């Protein structure tokens, strides 16, 4: 894979001469009259600061990025003057409608503004002053083990794609970097919660991981994005809300409140991206429908994994007594229904209005509800 410079510069006289000439005070200033747009950007709202939206102007803006980016393959920052022989970085995602979403700049600004710190923003010591009963703590440890698996995959998705995406989509690539840190922070908080609670970690889930890998390894970005950014993140958003609502400790409630913010941002991108993709490429609707038909079974693999289902029942019911388990299984069935309802709403809002009818998932969920 290594890339080597086109020659051995240590013996290249032209380089030495060029450098020497300048260092003798003979400046060529070939860059001085760069053919670029002049701009003196300022914040439109000083309280908010200088945002990417403020700089969405002319050749520097993102609105005018064409659908097909054909003339940039290097690392030139959009709007700079391209000169000389620039390297080809081998980007394979060069169509705006494959990655763009109208809320990209907004989400990037939001993610920075709403950052948080697991080490210090969570009142960890409360876990030790008010420890949970053993079974409940074990259930928490298992749930947080499962959530770490989901975050490893959430971290891998943007990092897997970002270097393959054309640099002209720089706000989007920046947002993807923020997604990596978000996923890392969630992984961190879930791990810390599990281990600080004293019960250690539980068991990884083969069923969940099989599904997650299928989503992560989708061979095109829009497909992988709908799976990871919309389906998985949306599902986790509902899950965080559920655990937040049934939180066994204040620590868990606080964690879930931060987690839902991060998951909701990711979902907003997932929905926005699918919407943009379908708006600009209506012929792809069939392909995405086909992809969903083929892969959304993994959502069942995730929700139905005993490594998630069982601790959820215990956490939502508060323990392993019969009455608690009854409360827990009913709450969990409601959660499953809610997660799928919201998933279908988002898919429809993105443009696939008929999807819920053709999908196999809702019928399955009806069976779950009936069982409860």
């Amino acid at each position, binding site marked *: 894979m290594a890339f080597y410079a086109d020659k051995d510069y240590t013996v290249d006289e032209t380089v030495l001469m060029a450098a020497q000439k300048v260092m003798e005070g003979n400046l060529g200033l070939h860059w001085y009259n760069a053919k670029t747009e002049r701009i003196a950007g300022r914040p439109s*709202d000083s*309280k*908010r600061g200088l945002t990417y939206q403020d700089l969405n102007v002319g050749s520097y803006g993102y609105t005018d990025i064409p659908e097909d980016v054909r003339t940039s393959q290097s690392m030139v920052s959009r709007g700079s003057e391209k000169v000389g022989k620039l390297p080809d970085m081998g980007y394979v995602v060069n169509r705006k409608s494959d990655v763009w979403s109208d809320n990209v700049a*907004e989400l990037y*600004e*939001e993610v*920075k*503004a*709403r*950052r948080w710190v697991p080490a210090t923003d969570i009142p960890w010591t409360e876990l030790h002053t008010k420890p949970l009963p053993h079974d409940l703590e074990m259930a928490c440890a298992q749930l947080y083990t499962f959530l770490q698996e989901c975050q490893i995959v959430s971290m891998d998705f943007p990092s897997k794609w970002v270097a393959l995406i054309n640099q002209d989509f720089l706000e989007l690539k920046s947002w993807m970097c923020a997604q990596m840190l978000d996923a890392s922070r969630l992984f961190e908080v879930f791990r810390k919660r599990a281990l600080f609670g004293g019960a250690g970690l539980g068991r990884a889930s083969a069923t969940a991981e099989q599904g997650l890998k299928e989503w992560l390894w989708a061979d095109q970005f829009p497909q992988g994005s709908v799976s990871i950014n919309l389906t998985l993140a949306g599902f986790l*958003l509902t899950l*965080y*809300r*559920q655990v*937040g*609502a049934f*939180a066994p400790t*204040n620590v868990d*409630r606080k964690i*879930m*409140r*931060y987690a*839902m*913010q991060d*998951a*909701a*941002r990711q*979902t*907003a991108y997932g*929905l*926005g991206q699918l919407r943009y993709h379908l708006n600009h490429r209506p012929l792809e609707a069939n392909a995405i429908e086909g992809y969903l038909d083929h892969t959304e079974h993994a959502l069942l693999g995730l929700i139905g994994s005993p490594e998630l289902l069982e601790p959820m029942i215990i956490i939502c019911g508060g323990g392993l007594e019969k009455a608690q388990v009854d409360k827990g299984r009913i709450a969990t069935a*409601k959660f499953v229904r*809610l997660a799928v309802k*919201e998933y279908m*709403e*988002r898919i429809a*809002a993105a443009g696939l209005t008929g999807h819920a009818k053709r999908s196999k998932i809702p019928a399955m969920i009806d069976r779950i509800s009936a069982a409860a």
Partner: protein
Amino acid sequence: MAISFPSTEYFEALKAQMAANEEKFRRLGFIDTTFGVSVGVNGKARNFVLEFEVFDLKNVSEVPSIDLKKVDFQIEGDTRVWREMIENIRRNGEADSSHDINTLAHFGEQLKIVYDDPDGHDKLYRFMESIQEFFDLSSKLEVSFN
């Protein structure tokens, strides 16, 4: 003097508290959402629209009805639920685990979230910490219920 709930004055008082606690809300980050609050009183509803921008509540208005296409989402519930929430906040300094917005609204059994676009709905969660802290400022107010 006590501020009555529901009323524009109540939200204006929270707005003033939010401005007074600017540092805290700055730390929580941008909050860019407009949402509705609907309080059921004797079979009728009083409706408010809250417009948040950057770190502040920019505007509050009472409206005859809320157009869901013009807000991101709406939180609706009977005055009894709102009252219980506000009194709980007052007692604890912040909502306890059974009275935070997420818990009350989760299955739509006490408070209910209604929306036109799921993208708008998700903004409730994108800004949850700020929205919760905003309602928690009720702890600093004397509120009366008619």
